């Protein structure tokens, strides 16, 4: 027995190594495809300008020493600081509006057994699929009627049109998982319906509410069309629009600063989104696998 075991000690292990090698080999092209553009943007952001335009030697590493000059330019010669503040302010207000409307709505749809609740829920969710490209022209009128054109407040009004449907749907699914008993217990103890919601259901629902806040942020950051259509004053723009429109002057592209400005905000968003991606996927498909 022992001899037989010692005769082929590596057989299962080397099989395992072969399997791993095959999987990594299959994954490698996908990994290069996914990661290389980000690497390329990052290295462009900290290269000196002449280094970008050197022909000949391999461009994948530094030929001149790296520099923070592009970031300096961004903060001192453009409205980048304003763009960041605008983006933060927009996301904050959009999240506030979204939470204040979609938490009660999601709760009502999930828990109160209202007639038509299911269809109403699907109806609200379907509006998430009405794309900006159909709505941006009529919304341009709404924005100018509210006298918000060329101000980032126009985006605060408009972004909830996609965050409310998505977050209501997400929270509806979430509230369905909170046990009914805790609510009933609260009402036995003398809470009204509203009291039970505020004192018992909401405190145990914070993971769902935080998820909804995260998505209000990340979905707002994904927009380009609305900001392009409604905001054209330099210091009112959010980061993605500002970077894409203000760092290109005529035919001159400030590539280093463009990449620096794009990644400085893009990477944190991507990381947060990455952590919550499964929630996003189950938010839109959870209904199908439940």
């Amino acid at each position, binding site marked *: 027995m022992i001899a037989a075991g010692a005769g082929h000690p590596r057989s299962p292990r080397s099989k395992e190594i072969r399997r791993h090698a095959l999987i990594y080999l299959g994954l490698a092209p996908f990994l290069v495809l*996914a990661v290389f*553009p980000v690497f390329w943007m990052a290295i462009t952001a900290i290269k000196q300008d002449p280094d970008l335009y050197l022909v000949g030697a391999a461009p*994948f590493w530094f030929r001149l020493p790296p520099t923070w000059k592009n970031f300096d330019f961004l903060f001192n010669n453009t409205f980048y600081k304003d763009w960041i503040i605008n983006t933060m302010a927009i996301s904050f207000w959009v999240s506030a509006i979204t939470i204040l409307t979609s938490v009660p*709505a999601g709760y009502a749809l999930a828990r109160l057994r209202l007639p038509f609740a299911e269809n109403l829920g699907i109806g609200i969710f379907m*509006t998430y699929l009405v794309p900006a490209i159909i709505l941006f022209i009529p919304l341009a009128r709404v924005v100018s009627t509210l006298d918000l054109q060329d101000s980032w407040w126009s985006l605060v009004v408009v972004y909830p049109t996609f965050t409310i*449907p998505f977050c209501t749907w997400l929270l509806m699914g979430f509230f369905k998982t909170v046990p009914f008993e805790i609510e009933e217990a609260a009402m036995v103890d003398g809470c009204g319906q509203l009291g039970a919601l505020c004192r018992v259901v909401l405190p145990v629902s914070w993971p769902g509410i935080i998820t909804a806040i995260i998505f209000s942020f990340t979905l707002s950051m994904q927009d380009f069309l609305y900001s392009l259509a409604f905001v054209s004053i330099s210091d009112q723009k959010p980061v993605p629009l500002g970077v894409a429109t203000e760092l290109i002057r005529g035919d001159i592209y400030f*590539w280093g600063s463009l990449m620096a400005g794009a990644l400085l905000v893009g990477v944190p968003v991507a990381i947060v989104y990455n952590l919550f991606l499964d929630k996003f996927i189950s938010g839109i498909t959870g209904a199908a696998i439940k």
Partner: protein
Amino acid sequence: MTQLAGGDGRSPGTSLSVPVSGRVGVQAWWRTPTARRYLFGYTLLAPAVLYVSLLVGVPFAFSLYLSMSDASVGNPVARFVGLENFKAALENATFYTAVRNTLVFTVGAGILKGLLGTTLAFLLLQSFKGRKVVRALLVIPFTLPIAVSVLGWKWMFDSQFSVINWALSRLQLIGPYGSPDWPVWLGQPGLALFSVMFVNVWRGFPFSAIVLLAGLTSVPPEIIDAAKVDGTTFMQRFRLVIVPMIAPILFIGSAFDTVFTLSDLSIVYLLTNGGPDAATEILPTLAYNTGIRAGALGRGAAISLFLFPLLLPAMILLLRTLRRRQY
């Protein structure tokens, strides 16, 4: 009656405050716990429903009206012009190019995302060391804000300093800069359409893979094992067992992807803005350039509404899948 219809024991209100006998006839219907629960519920729903109706429903109806008027940015008093805008669009050669490109773009990118996504999903389904890290890296394209990554691609597609061309030329696949086989990705009609499609595929394939993976992991392994025992091949199992089981999730995933691909303006706008010579013009860029840039709101609204029949099948598919699910 109302009271009885709503009471099923789990109802928070009914089980508490209603003595079972005697008061049914006395109590006004709007005082019954069920009615109060409805009132409470619809009050909670009202803000969300109002917001969405006012800023999605009303604008949608308004865009139908705009599309039949000669409204423009400088002209607030619009005149009704009937189907004039739609007719004008149909008489414009660029419009047909845009429709064709939109279809090629959506279908072509959809097929590529499906193929890449399926391959990747089966790779990720295996257990291997570093799976979580690999997955986190692979979804980067989908999680980066779209305008951010498109700018990166614009730099990679640069006509002279493209890193792609540098690599290709070092591999002797293309000539040096200036030679006729040096590809100008965003400047040559066929290549430009391919390039914008490629960026869409790059952004979308992780989404396809993750959605598919979510579906695949929801299939109970016993069912696959049972099919294996019955002597099926991998392809048979895939076609006859896995696909039917994960169909709902596939429908939802592809409905979302189709809607987002059809309606996305940013890739084409930032890379080529429809050029060269309308080679990459799609309905969203045409609608934006007509409606906002040129200020012809009515025209623009009409063009964007042509997207609606293209979007409708995806939305109906989604609606039917959502309504058919089981509780």
